[in-house]
């Protein structure tokens, strides 16, 4: 366990503020009164194995600060201790892990987690966490070995040592723990449609929602915080502050009264996609709330008002990452909203007037405050108030060092030289435990940029602001995110934007709450505190990117913003550079001697903040991921011990093992029965498409390699369908049901693809053909009798004349089977005598059960897909997609195609391209392993050399492989370069396990090569 940190008390600093309590201690940083927390409801929680107490209304961050917990994590590259920096979603410093087991969540910003009883959190990395960390300490000391791009530079050689480097780096980086079990939370998706979506519930957003709501629009207002009101709820308990909160309450009250307005709290909009389609995550926050834990909202809004506000910009100075360096606005939030004084000796370091509010309010709450202002002569109203309140101000100064490693103990300040490019030598030490910094405000323009709007750099604001809007999306920005910071402007702009978005509406607007001092002076922007100073000046706390890193990247040629981002990882952390990107640009511009506006900016990609995979998946998990198709006979299969397998979207019996039988034994028994007796296969999954119309024959003639012309009614013909590149796309049997009506069979998983393909040609190319296609796969159940006894069995249950002279191979007859209306096809995928009995799907189970009963006398054996594949493999019948890939043509499979111009079909011309005529194309062949018991794994590669030495060119690979009881040995199909020219030769199968093995290339048919049995 980490030890209690002993700190040397500095003059005027109360050391207990910076010490970790050994056991649950009082909330020593909590003020006696004020704030929005409920002191009557104390909540116990644990952080890094220690017990603490906070109050209802706290966030985890405010509760930790109340308890004086300074170190909340370690930085990812240098392992430096980090504390809480902000009070909101932009938090770059502290990331924690919540819970454990199935409830584990990592990379959580403690500023966004409402405190709840029993909450357990860990610093990242855990569990060493915030204690001594020798590796991190080393990384910090030897950081010259971890320059930008260090992955590429340091660890690329020698390559065989990479696994070692990787292990070292992973343990050094504060990688978050990975949950060991599936997320136990439930998630939902919600589709929303509205006239106006307002993003952000601060003063501008509230005014916009109200204006649109009053105009009668359906409005959704989404805010990522637990409470609406934005910055207004951070105001102190003064009369102005109370008026601000009253204003918020009045606005929210009126919004709640409007039936077409929905307000969503803890709902962060994370993406702005085309045509005003936005994604938001609604966090239900409270563990006690009923599920779901989160909802992913998919919002299509007619108009969008972006009132996303602004975040405070940090200042860049040496060791500005020490725990205790916080954003000035965040200090104010903790003070006023949570009644937490993070430290009683405070230095406020600023370049603008707003931080003076923090100084005044902290001083008012009893802190000893000193202001260090970059500006030479600050004169604004707030500055004058501070001076009047006796707060010491050091104008024209900068912080040049931060004392203390694990917590701030003080700062060194020096005067800034007149040109702003250096610091003077006269240094002064200011003891303190908190440095509240403010470098101005950054409009949150990410969503505006994602909407397709262009950004422009505004030198008064010192940041990018919305410029030209998108042509594709309809959105408008209002308030601080638009670069308008005064309260009056926020409310006025918000109201106007809401009215415009709602398409008008009357009303002169809403009054705004009393503004504070509005005569703020301009800020003075400094890229970073200049001069040759010791210590690291951080630009991006989350990715550990310093000023020196950016300078180095620029010197090495990575000075374009997108290059810089990738080379240094600037802005690539969980905060997505929300507060670091601008400082990065400023430093880069300074290095290059250009203005920030000359650099452009990096892309603000969706999602703006981490979104849980659970939220994205929503309810589409496990059995709800995709519909599972079952045949009408499925209940019988289940009741009779079938082992199932997924084949595409279908679930099918793999085999029917009897008690005590292995799967291998079951398959041999099933196959044997189908070859010498009679087997029964549920082939209902076979794709079926009806093609009807006067143009049907002509159409199919253009779609299949083998002509469909002249096929008699009631006759069947096999064929392959190609894409226009000549590649086999599907194969199956076409049956002519009537002169203008055909039934196509397709692969079990291919019907949808084939139907789309047929429709494409009919609708886009041959619109003159009068043809309609209908998928009837699920309209028909198919029970197939296979084997020499099939006819004898079927004869008992049908009125169809089964005499082979009148019902020959490759024909279809209609009649009844087991009293059910049926189409019976003589098609033989097994190579043996077969009858495919099709009945309307609702009769499928009845047909099956009737056949089983009638079959008892014949030893009828139901079989599954494994036996089906074994039987077809013995015959060398292919499965498109298993024995073929995206390169295989009918010629490769051994089918000859005449070159004449008399008949064209889709893909034909491609078969005669030069590349298709090469002799060394991979062709379908059979394989016999030297060891007849050896079943080669599918995918095994074949080589010409018996003793291969890498790199070895491959001849091809095994596509199908079985042990065949009928042949009495193992058999395989393979695609082999120039395979038909290699018949009778021996090549080497190179097995991953077991080494080389000789195999002989043979024709791809192992059983009944003359095909006599199927004609029986």
């Amino acid at each position: 366990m980490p030890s209690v940190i002993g700190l040397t008390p500095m003059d005027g600093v109360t050391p207990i503020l910076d010490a970790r309590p050994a056991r649950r201690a009082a909330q020593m940083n909590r003020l006696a009164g004020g704030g929005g927390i409920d002191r009557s409801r104390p909540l116990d929680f644990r952080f890094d194995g220690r017990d603490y107490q906070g109050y209802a209304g706290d966030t985890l961050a405010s509760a930790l600060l109340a308890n004086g917990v300074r170190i909340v994590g370690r930085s990812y590259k240098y392992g430096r201790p980090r504390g809480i920096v902000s009070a909101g979603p932009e938090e770059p410093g502290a990331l924690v892990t919540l819970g454990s087991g199935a409830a584990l969540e990592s990379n959580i910003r403690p500023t966004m987690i409402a405190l709840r009883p029993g909450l357990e959190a860990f610093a990242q990395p855990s569990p060493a966490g915030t204690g001594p960390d020798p590796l991190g300490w080393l990384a910090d000391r030897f950081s010259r070995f971890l320059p930008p791009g260090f992955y590429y530079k340091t660890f690329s050689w020698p390559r065989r040592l990479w696994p070692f480097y990787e292990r070292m780096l992973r343990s050094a980086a504060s990688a978050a723990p990975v949950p060991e079990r599936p997320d136990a939370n439930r998630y939902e998706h919600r589709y929303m449609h509205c006239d106006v979506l307002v993003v952000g519930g601060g003063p501008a957003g509230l005014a916009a929602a109200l204006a649109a709501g009053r105009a009668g629009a359906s409005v959704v207002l989404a805010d990522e915080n637990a409470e609406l009101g934005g910055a207004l709820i951070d105001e102190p308990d003064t009369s102005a502050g109370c008026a601000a909160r009253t204003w918020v309450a009045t606005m929210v009250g009126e919004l709640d009264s409007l039936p077409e307005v929905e307000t969503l709290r803890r709902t962060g909009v994370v993406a702005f996609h085309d045509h005003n389609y936005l994604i938001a995550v609604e966090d239900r926050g409270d563990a006690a709330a009923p599920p779901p834990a989160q909802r992913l909202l998919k919002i299509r809004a007619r108009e969008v008002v972006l009132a996303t506000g602004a975040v405070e910009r940090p200042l860049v100075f040496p060791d500005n990452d020490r725990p205790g360096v916080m954003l000035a606005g965040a200090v104010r939030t903790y003070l006023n909203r949570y009644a937490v004084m993070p430290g009683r000796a405070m230095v406020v370091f600023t370049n603008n007037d707003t931080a003076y509010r923090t100084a005044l309010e902290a001083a008012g709450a009893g802190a000893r405050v000193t202001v260090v202002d970059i500006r030479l002569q600050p004169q604004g109203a707030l500055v004058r108030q501070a001076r009047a309140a006796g707060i010491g101000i050091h104008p024209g100064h900068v912080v040049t060092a931060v004392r203390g490693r694990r917590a701030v103990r003080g700062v060194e300040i020096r005067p800034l030289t007149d040109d702003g490019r250096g610091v003077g030598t006269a240094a002064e030490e200011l003891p303190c435990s908190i440095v509240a910094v403010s470098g101005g405000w950054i409009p949150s323009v990410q969503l505006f940029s994602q909407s397709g709007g262009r950004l422009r750099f505004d030198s008064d604001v010192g940041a990018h602001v919305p410029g030209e809007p998108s042509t594709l999306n309809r959105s408008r920005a209002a308030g601080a995110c638009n670069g308008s910071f005064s309260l009056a402007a926020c409310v006025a702009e918000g109201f106007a934007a809401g009215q415009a978005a709602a398409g008008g509406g009357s009303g002169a607007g809403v009054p705004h709450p009393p503004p504070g001092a509005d005569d703020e002076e301009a800020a003075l922007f400094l890229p970073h505190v200049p001069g040759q100073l010791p210590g690291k000046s951080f630009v991006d706390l989350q990715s550990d990117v310093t000023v020196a890193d950016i300078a180095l990247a620029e010197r090495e040629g990575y000075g374009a913003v997108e290059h810089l981002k990738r080379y240094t990882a600037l802005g690539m952390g969980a905060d997505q550079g929300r507060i670091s990107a601008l400082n990065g640009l400023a430093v880069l511009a300074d290095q290059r001697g250009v203005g920030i506006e000359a650099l452009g900016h990096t892309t603000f990609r969706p999602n703006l903040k981490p979104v849980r995979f659970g939220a994205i998946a929503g309810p589409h998990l496990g059995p709800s991921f995709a519909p599972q198709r079952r045949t009408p006979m499925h209940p019988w299969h289940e009741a009779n011990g079938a082992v199932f397998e997924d084949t595409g979207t279908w679930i099918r019996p793999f085999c029917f093992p009897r008690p005590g039988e292995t799967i291998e034994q079951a398959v041999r028994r099933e196959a044997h029965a189908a070859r010498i007796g009679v087997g029964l296969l549920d082939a209902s999954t076979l794709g079926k498409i009806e093609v009807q119309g006067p143009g049907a024959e002509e159409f199919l003639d253009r779609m299949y390699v083998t002509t469909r012309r002249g096929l008699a009614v009631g006759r069947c013909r096999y064929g392959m369908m190609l894409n226009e590149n000549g590649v086999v796309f599907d194969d199956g049997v076409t049956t002519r049901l009537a002169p203008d009506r055909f039934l196509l069979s397709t692969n079990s998983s291919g019907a949808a693809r084939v139907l789309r393909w047929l429709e494409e040609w009919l609708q886009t190319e041959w619109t003159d053909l009068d043809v309609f296609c209908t998928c009837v796969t699920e309209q028909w159940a198919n029970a197939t009798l296979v084997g020499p006894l099939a006819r004898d069995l079927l004869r008992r249950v049908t009125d169809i004349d089964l005499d082979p002279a009148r019902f020959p191979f490759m024909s279809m007859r209609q009649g009844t089977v087991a009293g059910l209306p049926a189409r019976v096809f003589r098609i033989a995928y097994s190579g043996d005598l077969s009858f495919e009995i099709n009945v309307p799907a609702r009769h499928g189970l009845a047909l099956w059960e009737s056949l089983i009963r009638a079959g008892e006398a014949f030893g009828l054996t139901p079989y599954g897909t494994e036996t089906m594949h074994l039987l077809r493999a013995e015959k060398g019948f292919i499965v498109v997609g298993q024995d073929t890939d995206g390169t295989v043509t009918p010629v490769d499979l051994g089918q000859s195609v005449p070159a004449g111009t008399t008949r064209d079909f889709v893909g034909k011309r491609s078969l005669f391209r030069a590349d298709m005529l090469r002799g060394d194309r991979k062709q379908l062949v059979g394989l016999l392993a030297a060891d007849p018991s050896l079943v080669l794994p599918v995918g095994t590669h074949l080589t010409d050399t018996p003793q291969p030495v890498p790199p070895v060119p491959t001849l091809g690979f095994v596509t199908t492989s079985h042990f065949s009881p009928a042949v009495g040995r193992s058999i395989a199909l393979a695609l082999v370069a120039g395979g038909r020219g290699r018949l009778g030769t021996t090549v080497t199968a190179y097995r991953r396990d077991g080494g080389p093995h000789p195999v002989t290339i043979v024709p791809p048919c192992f059983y009944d090569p003359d095909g006599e049995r199927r004609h029986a």
Partner: protein
Amino acid sequence: MLLIRCPWCSEREQTEFSYHGEAHIARPATPMDQTDEQWGDYLFFRSNTRGPHRERWLHAAGCRRWFNLLRDTATGQILAVYRPDEPAPAATAG
């Protein structure tokens, strides 16, 4: 995600549609008379337009009908929707 106005079903989500590349690629009337190069052009070569682009779409999870869009590939803006039997609009339609 685009909102696409199917000529038969009106405005629907992009997820209901599938995209099928450049429109108006004429299939040669007598493929076997084509040289390898001509046939290769038909099979593989597309204009890769930046700006207004005529392209084929299928309302796959809807009415299953094919139609064409004139869409600006740089901005995503849909400038025109037309059926396969309608004449292609000018590239500036809007």
